C-alpha cells in the first residue's frame, strides 16, 4: 500500500482481507481507502474498483482468486508461490510477460538472488546455482511456515527459468535471534569456465546498483569469492520499513518488485487504451 502510494503509475484503490479487525484493513481505512473484509467474494461484487490485483494470500487460495479475476479481465500479480503465471524478476525480465493475465513474483529468496545469478550468467554460462536465504523467524508468516517446501521448489525452478542456471537449488533457514536478523542470502554458482573474475564482479556490481533503484537496502556483504569454477556472493536486504521493520527485507523486496511489475502493467494498459 505504501509503495503503491509512491508509484507514479499506480493508484491505490481498495484493500481486501478476510478479518475485519486485521491491522492491514484498519490502516487502509484510516488512510481513506475502501476496504473489503469478506475476501475475493466481496471484490467480485465491485470489480470496477480495480484494474490490477496484488494477491499475497496463499498458493492454495490464489488458484481460485486467479481464475475469477482473469476471467473478469483483471490483471493479477501473484506474490504467493502458486506460480500459475510466468515468473518475473524485474531486473531480468520485467517486460517479458507484461501482457500476461497473471504473473508470479517467485519468492523473496528468488527476488533477492536471481538477479545475481543472471548477472553471472550473462558473463559465463552457469551450470548450477544454489541459494541459501536466511530470514528472521518473525518475518516468516504462517503460510510460509506451513508450506516451506513451496519456497524451495518455486525458487529452484525460477533459478533455472529466469536465472539461466542449468540446475537450481534453494534452501531457506529461519533464524529466531533477537533483535531479528536482517535478511541475508548466499548465492553459490558453478560456472562453465574458470576465469572471467573481473567481468563477473563488474556485472554483479552493476546488477546490485540496478536492484538498489527499487530496493535501496539491497547490498553486497562482501566481494564475490572465487574458488575454481565456483563463485560465492553474499548479500543482505534491509527493508524500507514501510510496514514491517527493516529486518524484513524479504517482504520488502517482494513487494518492491511487485510494484515494479505493476508500474509496467499500468503503462502497458494505458498505452493499449491510447491506441484504441
Amino acid at each position: 500500500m505504501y509503495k503503491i502510494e509512491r508509484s507514479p503509475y499506480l493508484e491505490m484503490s481498495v484493500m481486501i482481507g478476510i478479518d475485519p479487525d486485521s491491522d492491514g484493513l484498519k490502516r487502509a481505512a484510516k488512510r481513506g481507502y475502501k476496504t473489503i473484509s469478506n475476501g475475493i467474494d466481496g471484490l467480485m461484487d465491485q470489480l470496477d474498483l480495480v484494474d490490477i490485483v496484488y494477491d499475497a494470500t496463499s498458493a492454495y487460495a490464489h488458484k481460485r482468486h486467479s481464475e475469477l479475476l482473469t476471467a473478469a479481465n483483471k490483471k493479477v500479480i501473484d506474490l504467493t508461490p502458486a506460480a500459475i503465471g510466468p515468473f518475473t524478476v524485474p531486473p531480468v525480465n520485467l517486460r517479458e510477460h507484461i501482457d500476461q493475465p497473471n504473473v508470479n513474483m517467485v519468492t523473496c529468496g528468488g527476488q533477492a538472488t536471481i538477479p545475481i545469478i543472471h548477472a553471472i550468467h550473462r558473463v559465463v554460462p552457469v551450470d548450477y546455482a544454489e541459494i541459501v536465504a536466511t530470514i528472521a523467524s518473525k518475518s516468516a508468516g504462517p503460510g510460509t511456515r506451513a508450506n516451506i517446501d513451496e519456497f524451495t521448489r518455486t525458487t529452484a525452478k525460477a533459478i533455472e527459468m529466469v536465472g539461466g542456471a542449468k540446475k537450481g537449488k534453494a534452501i531457506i533457514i529461519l533464524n529466531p535471534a533477537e533483535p531479528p536478523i536482517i535478511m541475508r542470502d548466499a548465492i553459490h554458482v558453478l560456472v562453465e569456465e574458470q576465469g572471467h573474475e573481473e567481468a563477473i564482479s563488474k556485472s554483479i556490481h552493476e546488477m546490485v546498483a540496478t536492484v538498489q533503484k527499487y530496493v535501496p537496502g539491497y547490498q553486497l556483504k562482501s566481494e564475490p569469492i572465487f574458488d575454481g569454477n565456483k563463485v560465492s556472493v553474499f548479500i543482505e536486504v534491509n527493508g524500507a520499513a514501510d510496514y514491517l521493520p527493516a529486518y524484513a527485507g524479504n517482504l520488502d523486496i517482494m513487494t518492491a518488485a511487485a510494484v515494479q511489475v505493476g508500474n509496467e502493467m499500468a503503462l502497458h494498459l494505458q498505452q493499449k487504451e491510447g491506441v484504441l
Partner: protein
Amino acid sequence: MKLNVLDVTLRDGSHSVRHSFTVEQVRAAAKGLNASGVPYFEVSHGDGLGGSSLQYGLSKTDELKLIEAAVSECTTSQVSVLLLPGIGTKEDLQSAASLGVKMARIATHVTEADIGAQHIELARSLGLKTVGFLMMSHMAPVEKIVEQAKLFESYGAEIVYVTDSAGAMLPKDVTERISALRQALQCEIGFHAHNNLSMALANTIAAIKAGATYVDGSMRALGAGAGNTQTEVMAAVLERLGYETGIDLYNLIDTANDVIAPLMQQPQEITGSSLILGYAGVYSSFLLHAQNAAEQFGIDERDILMKVGEMKAVGGQEDLIYEVAQNLASKREVVP
C-alpha cells in the same frame, strides 16, 4: 529397562568425512550394525536428505544409493533418515521411504517446530516411525522447548528429541530439559549429543536418568565437531549401568575398528576449535568449513567460530563463516 540406541555414524559422520561415503563403506557398516543388534541407524547427507550442496558439501555418492545399500543389509535393524525442512522436501522423504526406510527424523531449529508439521504428517502417513528433532536445544529456555516439543507431538511425532547440536550442554541442562519434556509429553523422548565439551556420554546418561528412551551414538564418535557419543562405549556403559540395549558389544567394536576406523579422514578428537564450538554454542558442522575459511583468509578459525556464536547463527548458516572470515581478514589488513 530397555533403551533404544540409534547409530548416526552414516549420517552425522558424513560431516566428518566431508560427505564422501561410498556404497561399499555404507554396506559394510550397515552389515556390522545389523549383526550387532543396533535397532536403528541413520543414513543421509550430514545435513539430512537433500543436503548435498555447495553450502554444506556435495555428496560423493547420491544418498539414495547409500540408503538403498544400507536397507539391503538389514534383517533386524531399521534404517532412519534425517530431514531438515527448508533443505529437504516431502519428495525427498517419499523417495527415501520407497527404498524401505522405517524411521524419519524431522529436524528444525528448537524454536521453529511448525515448519515441520507437513513433513511429520507425511512421515506418519507413510507408516514411518516419526521423530521430531529439536536442534540447538541449548539456545532456548526450558518453557520454549516444552512448547515446541508439544507442537511436534501434536503433529504426530512419536518421539521428540532434545538435540545438543553445538555440544554446548552440561548434564544439568540436559536433566532440566528432558525432565520438563517427560512431564509435559505423552510420547517418548530422545537425546542426541555432541562431544565438543567432552560431555557427550555424561549428558546421554543424564538424559536417560531424566526419562529419555532413545539415545544417539556414533561409532568411533564419527560426527560433526568433536563427534557424537561413541556408540560402542555407550553400549558398554549402559550395560554396566544395568540397561538393556540388545547390542552385541564385540560385534559393534569390530565394526568400529574394521569399517569405521579405516575411513576416518582425521582423528575424531576434541581439538581447540571443536572445544570452541561447545564453548561458544556453535552448530558442530561449522567446524570443517571454519577450518577451510581460516586457511583461505589466513586467520584463526577460533576467531571465526566465536564471532559466529556471537551472531547467534543457527544450523545451516554455513555461508556466514566465509563472510565473517572475509570481514575479519579485511579488518586485520587496515590495522597497521
